[in-house]
């Protein structure tokens, strides 16, 4: 159920972010989705790619600071209120969300959100109890790559 997300430390200087994306492209790694959290002084680039081990190796070999984290990919009805309902379930379950971002691809009227929970296993149990679909890596990348 859990998906490996790669986070990369981004320095606050022109071209540093682009260089990371370029390094991955040159290694033939397709970024399925990403989010960038940044401040004036530094940023954190979070990536979902199919071959995360290769991506991690490429970035580390280039001297980057990389960390992998388990995240969940959760389906959301792609209509007004779809995300609100999901968040209500999460709140009701007392589960802590560290951050979340939207997955680039939708599928048959459903969107996908990436969630970083404090405790991913507890989150899976709570969501499944409510009949909410948590995608595994195979499902996720099938949607992304057709």
């Amino acid at each position, binding site marked *: 159920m859990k998906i490996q*997300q790669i*986070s990369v*430390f981004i*320095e*606050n200087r022109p071209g540093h972010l682009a260089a990371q994306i370029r390094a991955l492209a040159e290694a033939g790694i397709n970024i399925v989705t990403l989010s960038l*959290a940044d*401040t004036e*002084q*530094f940023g*954190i680039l*979070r990536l979902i790619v199919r071959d995360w081990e290769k991506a991690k190796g490429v970035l580390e070999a280039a*001297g*980057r*600071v*990389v*960390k992998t*984290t388990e995240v969940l990919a959760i389906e959301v009805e792609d209509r007004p209120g779809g995300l609100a309902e999901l968040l209500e379930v999460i709140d009701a379950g007392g589960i802590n969300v*560290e*951050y979340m971002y939207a997955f680039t691809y939708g599928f048959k009227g459903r969107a996908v959100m990436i969630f*970083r929970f404090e405790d991913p296993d507890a989150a899976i149990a709570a969501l499944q109890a409510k009949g909410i679909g948590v995608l595994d890596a195979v499902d996720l990348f099938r949607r992304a790559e057709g």
Partner: protein
Amino acid sequence: MTDFPFENRIWDPAETLARDELRALQAERLRETVARVAHVPFYRRALAERGVGADDIRIADDVRRLPFTTKEDLRQHYPLGFLAVPREELVRLHGSSGTTGKPTFVAYTAEDLECWANLCARFLVAGGLRREHMVQIAFGYGLFTGGFGLHQGVELVGASIIPAASGNTPRQVMLLVDLRPEVLICTPSYALNIAEVARAKGYGPDDIALQFAHFGGEMWTEDMRHEIERALGIQAFNNYGLSEIIGPGVSGECAARGGMHISEDHFLVECLDPDTLEPVPEGEQGELVITTLTKQAMPLLRYRTRDIAALDSAPCRCGRTGTRMSRVVGRTDDMLIIRGVNVFPSQIEEALLRVDGATPHYLIEVDRPGAMDEVKVKVELRPEAFSDRMDEMQRLRDRIGREIFTVTGLRVGLELVEPQTLERSAGKALRVIDRRQNRPGG
């Protein structure tokens, strides 16, 4: 006296001279010194230029009428241009390891050596040394003043000496374990090195008998003191001196450990603003400027040590009357004045060492875009400290900023950078880029 960690013993009654007697003695000895340096061409000229002679010295504060001496002056009169006695009267020469190639020599007459041993004995006894102790001296014996200077001091007290000298750390550990000396004398960084090797060999504080250590010869911090004391199970004492003046023995800590008592009957120490050369208010940091009062072979007038420290003349509960100096916090050579505050790169390093997620690799960038100085500190991130969570990263940044503020009193802009990205030239890191125009002191 029960509030001392051990008996407060005083080696030399001169250490407790009443302040007014001490000042009178300083004035008398200063007058003699000015008369003595008339044999040195450099001083004869400099005194004539200022129109000052021995007869003009009435009180100790008259030292301010005398010319300064710099390291550069000593270099220009290499090797022995500052001798005030005929060469035949010398009994010993030492030298400081010059970073520019040639050492700066210091010379001693028999009387100088006797005096030097007594000065070392003063701080050794103040910091716990007793006749019945065994002492391991792990300072270099050679041109460097540390080994021989402390050796003579310990010998005068009557304790036994293991002249281990520096280096061969496994052997140092063996001597500590097998001979069980109570006192260790070396540089603080070498003590850490010895402690590490001891630990690697499976020895802890219980396997050695050390009780006290006397450290000098380099700058160190309170954090380092705690670390060494823990690692070796000892009490560590700081002492200060510099080879141009005499070597170790200018000042040292007593059992109260609230600063190092200066042997003011032998050294007249001023604390001056390095730019204006005016005295700083007591308690504030300034450059130590030292005039020797009893040296025969090579007396120096107002020697600019480039060491930054603060003075405190409040009475000490140990009974010694000598003014206390703080530990040396930096050198004028690398001091930055930012928004009127003195900051040393070593302080930034000290702050970074207190934070787990930071490395001691940093670059200080100073700008003055408007009227105010702006400081940015770039710090290399420790890879293990990187988090995908912004709140954790912000917390790490705040923590580093707070530690820098605690140590320097400055709020700095902080930028985290990737490991191994700050320039290292020939192993030694570039620490400061100062882009200010007309910077103070520059």
